[in-house]
C-alpha cells in the first residue's frame, strides 16, 4: 500500500500492475485490496490501465473521508475473473528484454507467445508449448 502525504493525482495513462504474492490465496469477484492512502485530495482518473497475472477486469474504488480534502483510501476491486479454459500458447521468444538480453517468460507483460497465431502474453494456468519454431530457445523465467 502506498501512502501519499498530500494530494494524490492519478494521471491518465497510469498503469497499475497486480502481482499475487501468495499464489495459494483465493481471490474472488468483489474482493477489494487497499492500494493508496492519501491525506488531502484525490485528482485525476479512476480508470488507469490495470493488469494482473490472471484474466479478469479490475477497477479502483475511492473512499474519501467525509470532510473535504481530508484524505481517503483507494482500493483495487476485482470486478470479474475469467472462467475461460486455459489458453494454449506457443513460445516465440520474439521480444528480447534490452536490459537483460533475454527473451522472458513473465506474467502478462511480454508477448513472447502466440495464441492461434497472434502475439500473446502468459496468464497463470495457461498451457505452454516450446517447439522448434521459436526464434530462441533461451527462456528467462521471471519472478514477478
Amino acid at each position: 500500500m502506498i501512502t501519499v502525504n498530500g494530494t494524490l493525482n492519478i494521471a491518465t495513462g497510469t498503469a497499475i500492475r497486480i502481482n499475487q504474492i501468495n499464489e495459494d490465496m483465493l481471490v474472488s469477484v468483489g474482493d477489494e485490496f487497499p492500494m493508496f492512502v492519501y491525506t488531502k485530495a484525490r485528482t485525476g482518473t479512476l480508470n488507469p490501465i490495470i493488469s494482473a497475472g490472471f484474466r479478469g477486469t479490475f477497477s479502483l474504488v475511492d473512499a474519501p473521508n467525509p470532510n473535504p480534502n481530508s484524505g481517503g483510501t483507494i482500493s483495487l476491486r476485482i470486478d470479474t475473473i475469467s472462467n475461460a479454459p486455459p489458453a494454449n500458447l506457443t513460445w516465440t521468444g520474439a521480444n528480447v528484454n534490452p536490459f537483460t538480453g533475454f527473451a522472458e517468460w513473465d506474467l502478462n507483460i511480454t508477448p513472447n507467445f502466440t495464441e492461434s497465431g497472434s502475439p500473446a502474453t502468459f496468464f497463470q494456468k495457461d498451457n505452454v508449448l516450446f517447439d522448434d519454431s521459436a526464434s530462441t530457445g533461451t527462456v528467462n523465467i521471471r519472478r514477478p
Partner: protein
Amino acid sequence: MIKPTLVTINNNSLNYVFNGDGGLIGSGGLVKTGSGTLTIGTQNRHTGGSTINGGYVMIGQLGNNSLAFGTGGTLTVSNATLQMDGNPILNDMYIPAGSTATLTYERLFAWNSITGSSGSASGNFSGNLHGSGTLVIAMSGGGSNKPDANGNGSFIFNGVDNSDGTGYVNLIPDLDYPSPTCSWVLAMPTPAATWSGTRDSPRRRALPFARRSATCGSMICRLAPEWHRHPYGQSTASVGTLRRWILVVWAAIRPGPVTLLMPRWPRPTSPRPAWERWSSLEMC
C-alpha cells in the same frame, strides 16, 4: 512465480534453456519430447510431475539444482538421458517397461562441485524407483580435460518399489575411458542389499559393465573389450578367476544366476560393439 497448467517441450532442432530467478509452481506438470536438449537451471516447485520421453535433459549446469523437476509428482523417464549434477532429486522415478532411463554424471563437473578432491560423483534420489524399465547410471569424461581415472561413485535410492515390475540397473563407470580402479556402489535399502561393483582379480581391472536385477537375484556382467572371448571358445585363466570372484561376491549377497557377456574376438574398435553382438558365458 509462473503457474502453468502444462509445459510441453517438443524440440528436435532447437535446444532450450530454462533460466532466470523465477520458476514453475502449481499443480501442473512438465513434458519433454523430441530429440533435442533441455537445460533446466530454474528451481521449480510444481507438483504435477515431469515426464521425459526423449532427448537429453541437463540439470544443475547453471548451479546446483535439486528442484529441476519440482517438489512433487513422479519423474517419468522413457528412452531419454538426464545429465545430473549429483544433488538429491526429490521426486520418485518411474521407468516404464521396455524403456531405458540413462543418468550421466560428468566427472569433471562432479569433481568441481561435489567432492572437490577425488573426482568422485554421487547421485541420490530421495524418492523411490518404480517401473520395469532399465536404469543406466554412467559416468562420463570431463570436457577438454582428461578424465579422472580413479573415480568412485555411489548411487543411492531411498527405496525401490517393485510392485509394478522388475527393473534393472546398469552401472557404467566410464564409457569412453574405462578406469582401472573405478568402482561403483549401488545402494537400494529396500528390498535389495547393497552391491559393490569393485575390482576383479588378479588383474585388478574394474568390471566396467554390470547389470543387476533388484528382485530376481540374477546378475549380468558386461565385460570390457579386454575380456574378449576367443573364437575357438577359449576361456582364459583370468576369466575363470573373474568368474570365481563374481560367484563368491554374488553368493554372499543373493544367490542366483550370473551371466558374463564378453565382446567377440577380434573386438571391433569402431563403432563400439553393441551388446547384442557379444557372446555370453552362463555362470549359473
